[in-house]
């Protein structure tokens, strides 16, 4: 019988606990009463104390459980079971409040119910027992967040611990667990809570550099999907939202950094406040124009005083602004390579900056001038394609980045320090920096540099990025007046387009030929819809240059005619020029004519050319040259007449034959006659 149970095997304390347990379910009051009695009989028994705690915990009596916990922490500091319990409480504290189950919630409440000094003691003692640096940091971080006055004592120690551990473990990537905790969690806390840090400003700048390096690497690393696809993630939108950057050693929720740029700006401001910068508090939430004006006026003010500290402020503020503009811009260029924590750009393909074409009306300016001087007030205009809905912000980011970049090169000291930063961060390995530089060279008219830049990157690139570079390379060659190279690359580019040869007609939305004063650049999306027309236009521009020069030939004119069909009749002016030239010459030989020309307007014009009204031009445009025929046969009077009748018949047949879509004809032309086209340039 339990009540009188003489369990002689058990010690008195064990027996008391057993009796209490016996009542735990049937009569909780009795169980509690037994444990109260037991504690008075054996005040030094951890077994009884722990049982009392468990009983209160089981009954969900937060307050009483907390009292017992406090008591145990005071009297039984060497009990392993106690520390196991404390540890599970602290683990519960650290779990995400969103995913907390009721057990964790309850443990958290017990923690909250203990007095502050006990909470603090729990955190610090457990942290002290931790061997793993990461675990220890987590706990100390938790402690510091709960008890900010601990920051002064533990903050800097923690910073040092993380830095040491990062270098000790030889982390290859700046995106590692130690750096993350350092940059995102500890450093802001330390800078915020310590009003007066006894730290040289050089050290603070080093920390800031490490922060920049971390955030840049974090936001530019490709997203990793290591969670298996659950059915509800199969939908593309959800899969996109779930893209997670994982940092080895950290839990998933610890890897989420919701506002990296905001964090970096706040860190900059915290560092600034410690080294005595005067900074506008919310400048980074304002418009790009405002930010640039702010930076510029800061620069102008500091330029006169020319102090070391003033220069540092320019250097770091400008660099970080530069990086953000650059990042925003390049995320529209190379979105696929950027981590998924960022808002989708809303575009289906990368944007590409290319040279615009001048209309024939102002022929005198049609050539872009090489290497504009900075003093030149007429900076190039950027004309975005109408398909890019957020073109203005893309352009603004690009231009602001450009201006920041120029500002960072405005003085020798600044340039030197900026370059040194770039070297520290190994900026040359950042592909997105390369993209920006290419675009910058194109914008500045530094085509030679652009060619060199692209050629060093293009080999490793693929898909859309390869297409983009290829297009820009062609563009740069064209601007350098290396037409054959330009055409060669363009035709490579066309080969890269995947839907050439598809059945759907390509609708040319915007004219590639621009009016207006000064140089103009086009901002296009790397879609077939926009790239193919540009390629054709670039070919036309190249051929045109040569065809109307002293080195021109009928072959070039013929090629132009073929290409003009693509966007017919948009460039009728050029067509008229060609016809005029043919009339003036009086002869025209182009045996590929009937292979590639199906445009009725052009065919009609040629039918006319042959007549007396048209100027009686001697046309040799049949597939088999009349010259060849005449060489093969004896020349008789009736022969030419026969040829002429053949020509008419062929013309009529050609009109009826048109079935193939025009872009397919052009594509076939470019493929089959590639060598011929290049050869003629």
């Amino acid at each position: 019988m339990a009540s009188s149970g003489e369990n002689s095997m058990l010690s008195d304390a064990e027996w008391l606990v057993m009796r209490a347990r016996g009542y735990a379910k049937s009569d909780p009051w009795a169980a509690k009463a037994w444990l109260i009695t037991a504690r008075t009989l054996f005040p030094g028994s951890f077994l009884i104390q722990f049982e009392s705690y468990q009983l209160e915990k089981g009954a969900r009596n937060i307050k009483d459980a907390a009292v017992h916990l406090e008591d145990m922490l005071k009297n039984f500091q060497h009990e392993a079971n106690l520390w196991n319990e404390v540890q599970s409480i602290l683990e519960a504290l650290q779990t995400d409040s969103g995913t907390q189950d009721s057990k964790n919630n309850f443990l958290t409440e017990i923690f909250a119910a203990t007095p502050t000094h006990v909470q603090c003691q729990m955190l610090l003692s457990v942290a002290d027992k931790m061997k793993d640096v990461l675990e220890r940091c987590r706990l100390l971080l938790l402690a510091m967040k709960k008890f900010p006055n601990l920051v002064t004592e533990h903050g800097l120690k923690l910073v040092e611990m993380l830095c040491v551990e990062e270098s000790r473990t030889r982390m290859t990537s700046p995106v590692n667990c130690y750096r993350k905790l350092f940059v995102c969690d500890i450093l802001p806390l330390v800078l915020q809570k310590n009003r007066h840090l006894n730290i040289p400003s050089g050290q603070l700048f080093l920390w800031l550099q490490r922060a920049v390096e971390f955030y840049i690497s974090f936001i530019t690393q490709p997203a990793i999907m290591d969670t298996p696809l659950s059915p509800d993630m199969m939908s593309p939108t959800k899969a996109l939202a779930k893209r997670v950057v994982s940092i080895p050693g950290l839990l998933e929720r610890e890897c989420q950094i919701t506002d990296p740029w905001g964090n970096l700006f706040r860190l900059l401001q915290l560092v600034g406040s410690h080294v005595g910068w005067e900074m506008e508090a919310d400048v980074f939430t304002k418009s790009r124009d405002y930010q640039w004006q702010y930076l510029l006026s800061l620069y102008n003010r500091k330029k006169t005083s020319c102090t070391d500290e003033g220069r540092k402020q320019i250097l770091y503020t400008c660099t970080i602004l530069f990086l953000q503009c650059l990042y925003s811009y390049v995320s529209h260029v190379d979105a696929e390579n950027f981590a998924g924590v960022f808002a989708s750009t809303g575009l289906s393909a990368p944007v590409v900056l290319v040279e615009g074409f001048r209309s024939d009306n102002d022929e005198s300016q049609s050539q872009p001038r090489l290497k504009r001087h900075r003093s030149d007030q007429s900076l190039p205009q950027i004309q975005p394609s109408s398909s890019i809905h957020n073109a203005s912000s893309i352009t603004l980011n690009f231009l602001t980045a450009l201006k920041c970049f120029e500002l960072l090169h405005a003085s020798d000291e600044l340039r030197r320090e900026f370059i040194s930063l770039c070297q520290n961060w190994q900026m040359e390995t950042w592909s997105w920096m390369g993209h920006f530089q290419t675009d910058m060279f194109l914008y500045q008219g530094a085509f030679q540099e652009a060619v060199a830049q692209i050629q060093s990157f293009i080999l490793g690139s693929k898909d859309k990025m390869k297409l983009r570079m290829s297009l820009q390379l062609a563009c740069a060659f064209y601007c350098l007046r290396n037409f054959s190279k330009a055409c060669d690359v363009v035709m490579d580019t066309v080969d890269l387009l995947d839907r050439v040869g598809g059945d759907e007609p390509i609708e040319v939305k915007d004219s590639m030929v621009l009016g207006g004063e000064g140089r103009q650049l086009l901002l296009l999306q790397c879609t077939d819809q926009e790239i193919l027309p540009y390629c054709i236009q670039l070919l036309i521009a190249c051929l045109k240059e040569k065809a109307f020069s002293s080195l021109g030939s009928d072959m070039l004119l013929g090629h132009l005619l073929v290409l003009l069909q693509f966007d017919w009749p948009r460039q009728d002016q050029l067509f008229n020029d060609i016809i005029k030239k043919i009339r003036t010459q009086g002869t025209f030989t182009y045996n590929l004519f009937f292979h590639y020309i199906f445009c009725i307007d052009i065919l009609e014009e040629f039918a006319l050319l042959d007549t007396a009204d048209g100027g009686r031009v001697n046309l040799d445009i049949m597939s088999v040259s009349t010259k060849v025929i005449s060489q093969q046969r004896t020349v008789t009077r009736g022969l030419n007449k026969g040829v002429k009748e053949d020509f008419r018949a062929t013309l009529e047949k050609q009109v009826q034959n048109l079935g193939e879509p025009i872009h397919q004809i052009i594509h076939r032309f470019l493929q089959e006659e590639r060598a011929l086209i290049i050869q003629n340039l």
Partner: protein
Amino acid sequence: MTHNLIKKLRHMDFPECTREALQHLTSIFSSQDSVPGLSHGVEALAADICQEFILFKSKGKPQKTLPPIEELQLLQMLCTSFNEASQKSKYQIFNAIFCPRGDNYSSSLLTKLVSMALSISCSPVLDCAAIWAQERGCSTRPVQQLTLRLVEDYCLLFVDPSIVFQKLPSTSPLFVCNFITSVTMLYPFQDTRSVPPLCLLEHVTEWINTDCTLCCESVRQSRIHNNYSSPIPGLTGWCVRGIILSKYLLNSAKNSSEDSSKSSQDVELEKATKLLNLLSKLHLGLLQSLQFCQTNINNISQYLITVMNMLDIIHSLIIVCRACSVTPEEESLHTALERFSQVIQVSAVSGCLGVETGKLNEFRNIALNSFPRNRLLHMVLAFLTGENQQKVQTRP
């Protein structure tokens, strides 16, 4: 002058005369604050005023009784003047009115006053009544009478828990404390006729369990008022004897199927089960109240329980066991012994137990010889004797 005052009052009608009389009474006791005790003349005057204008008893005349409406007015005036009187003079006034002679009229007025004070939460009147009960002794007839009336009004008249009783601890903790002491004497739980009403037991349990400071209120007061009273011995008796009696009631309800209707059997079963439950909870509350004394009262002037009380309880337990024919191996007997042991143990450690070595030995002998062996009881007794020896040793 004295005569003038009385004369002046005699010329007034009720309720003015009483209102005036109460004002004079208040000012008499307030002005004498600095001097301990009143000069004989003034004391006599106060007594005369109380007799004639509050109790309406003039020398040589029959007791005048007020019509109910006027009596209600009188009670209201009394409550108001107790609220307004200075802290020190409150009990002096109360004492002047109710102490001299416990005649029927004055005790009936007191009962009515306390009842009203309960319903309007008038703390000063309840505090005074509590001190009065303590000075008189909780077991005395007038106090027991008052207690019975209150139990009848608040526990028996309506079965539902009384809201007035529920909030009583916040109105007057001292009153609750002495009221508990008094009810444990009114219903000693030593035979089937003295089982406390279920509703009363519910209130007491609820009070004790929600506020562990209640039980030592009277001991705190005893620094000022000399008469000792503690609810602990009575409550311990309830817990110890209660379990035997409740089990007995439960068993007889189970076995009474032959001669009673099904429904009345169910009622009895339910009642006995409730009693058992409440007693377990009450026992825990008791231990917690004792524990509270350990941490919060450094030098209580008197013990909450003594070995003499323990002897009384163990004797009564023997009687109850005999009356209920409890066998030595019965579980309820062991539970009773264990509950008793627990109270002894916790009160000893909390410094609430008054120990005389001789009496302790007597208790030990009775406990060991009258009951079957119980491990906890042995542990506690060993602890007590050990501790006692230590005390003797440490004392030079």
